């Protein structure tokens, strides 16, 4: 019979929470993808040893409070404007690792101009884009990435292209711009997917070190609260409906 003290020795450690994650209790719903991606960003910053050089820009949306969870310097931006705020920071601090963390409403709707032009200028920043096809914070309204037929608070009969237009593949659009060096779409629904997503985020931050331009990492995620599903059902629904429209993998890597 071994004591707990014998088990919790450093040499037995197989997993630990990155110290980049604070001890604040996350406000995210159980099953939400944000928590996982926060952890990945924290781990990458830790592994690259750039805590003292990383500056994050949080959006308006569910991840507005991202600054409570990652132990680095942060600016909180107006809705959609994170890429412009990051531009200001990066231009004045060209040696720093500047990244934005944005949702689909923030990035692809109200902030469409800012993300387009930051990518077009090739700002030396990383963009983490969480696409869960819905406005989570405000209570589950239609996002630009909401799928056709998808029910939301503002498309109660399902998204109808005649009324609401089509879902927007913003990531493919951004890959067309000369300023982006790395554009990829990942998910975080399985251990394998999480590992891939982390590698993508790491590569993006390494690109900043190499001053290659804008690196854009989309993570297709779930919003089981907004979708009104259990976390397990939400993952299944995502795989069956989101992945065909938003296929995973690198779109651009130069």
């Amino acid at each position, binding site marked *: 019979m071994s004591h707990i003290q014998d088990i919790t020795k450093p040499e037995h450690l197989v997993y630990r929470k990155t110290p980049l994650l604070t001890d604040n209790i996350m406000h995210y719903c159980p099953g939400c993808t944000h928590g996982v991606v926060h952890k990945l960003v924290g781990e990458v910053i830790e592994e690259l040893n750039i*805590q*003292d*050089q*990383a*500056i994050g*820009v*949080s959006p308006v949306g569910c991840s*507005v*409070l991202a*600054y409570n969870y990652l*132990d*680095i*310097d*942060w*600016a*909180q*931006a*107006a809705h959609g*404007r994170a890429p*412009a*705020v*990051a*531009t*200001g*920071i*990066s*231009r*004045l*601090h060209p040696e*720093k690792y500047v990244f934005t963390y944005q949702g689909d409403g923030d990035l692809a709707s109200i902030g469409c*101009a*800012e993300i*387009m*032009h930051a990518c077009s200028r090739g700002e030396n920043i990383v963009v983490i884009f969480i696409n869960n096809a819905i406005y989570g914070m405000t209570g589950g309204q239609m996002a630009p990435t909401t799928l056709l037929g998808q029910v939301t608070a503002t498309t109660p009969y399902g998204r109808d292209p005649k009324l609401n237009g089509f879902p927007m593949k913003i990531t493919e659009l951004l890959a067309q711009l000369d300023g982006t060096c790395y554009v990829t779409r990942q998910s975080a629904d399985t251990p394998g997917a999480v590992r891939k997503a982390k590698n993508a985020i790491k590569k993006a931050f390494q690109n900043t070190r190499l001053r290659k331009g804008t690196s854009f990492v989309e993570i297709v995620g779930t919003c089981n609260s907004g979708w009104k599903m259990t976390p397990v059902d939400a993952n299944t629904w995502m795989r069956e409906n989101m992945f065909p429209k938003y296929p995973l993998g690198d779109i651009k890597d130069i």
Partner: protein
Amino acid sequence: MKGNEVIAEAAIRCGCDGYFGYPITPQSEVMETLMLRKPWEETGMVVLQAESEVAAINMVYGAAACGKKVMTSSSSPGISLKQEGITYLAGAELPCLVVDVVRGGPGLGTIQPAQSDYFQATKGGGHGDYHLIVLAPASVQEMNDFVDLGFELAFKYRNPAMILSDGVIGQMMEKVELSPYKPRWTDEEIEKISGSWALRGKKNRKRNIVTSLELDSYGQEKFNLKLQAKYREIEAKEVRYEEIACEDADYVLVAYGSSARICQKTVKLAREQGIKLGLFRPITLYPFPTEAITKLAGRVKGMLSVEMSAGQMVYDVRLAVNGKVKVEHYGRLGGVIHAPEEVLEGFKSAFGL
């Protein structure tokens, strides 16, 4: 040099770290001059043409969050677009300089000079209880001087400052003595001045967070009270104004910026006709020189607020005068500039002279 060109030159000379802008008449010369001067080669100052006014002010927000001396400039419709960013800057207590070369409104309006954005500049402009520190230059020389002063006040109070100019002062040329060069702040200086809040990378300290968000309304009330205390301090310490020929005046014109220049001539014309007219020129529009006007009200028979607007500053003058004497407004609208003779006629008819 043109007033707008002087703004650019003064920015470089005062050690400004960055300018983010978007072209709009009548202030495009500011960014054009900067791009031609290439300060990034000379002082390291960053100059960037943004995709919109909205982006420009948010770039200012990001750069200001780093404790850097940064600025933007625009004209009325562009300033309206910038209001979102300006209220965020005020809410996050970030220092910066915004130059507004006002043109006639509302809407797209005209490109000619106006003073119809006094309310927008002095009463907040965006949402929430906040103020900008507002300086009103009346000469090209003051366009130069107020860039440095604006930054000084902005950093002293961690609050956005605005230079409220207009198409007259922006487009006119007159003699100007440019300020001597000041070096940009070093990393050590920024650490000393703004280290407790600026984003410089977390090292050997708690993380710095620049935000205007506070979900707890009691916390937000507390923050608002702190802001209000700051504004009371600014009102007590930073009022600036000029009195011209007020000592023996029976009547006083109250005017700022280009109208103040026009009114100087009106005062001269009036005195040639034996009318004892003076001019009171607010230099800071926020904080407004309320006390000085209250004092003046006890000595004169009436005041005329002269603005190229339908009458905005006149409300502040009336509050200061508090019914002691008659206060009227005169001004041409929509981009029409009143001439000194017109102001004199307007004054005479307002007071039945």
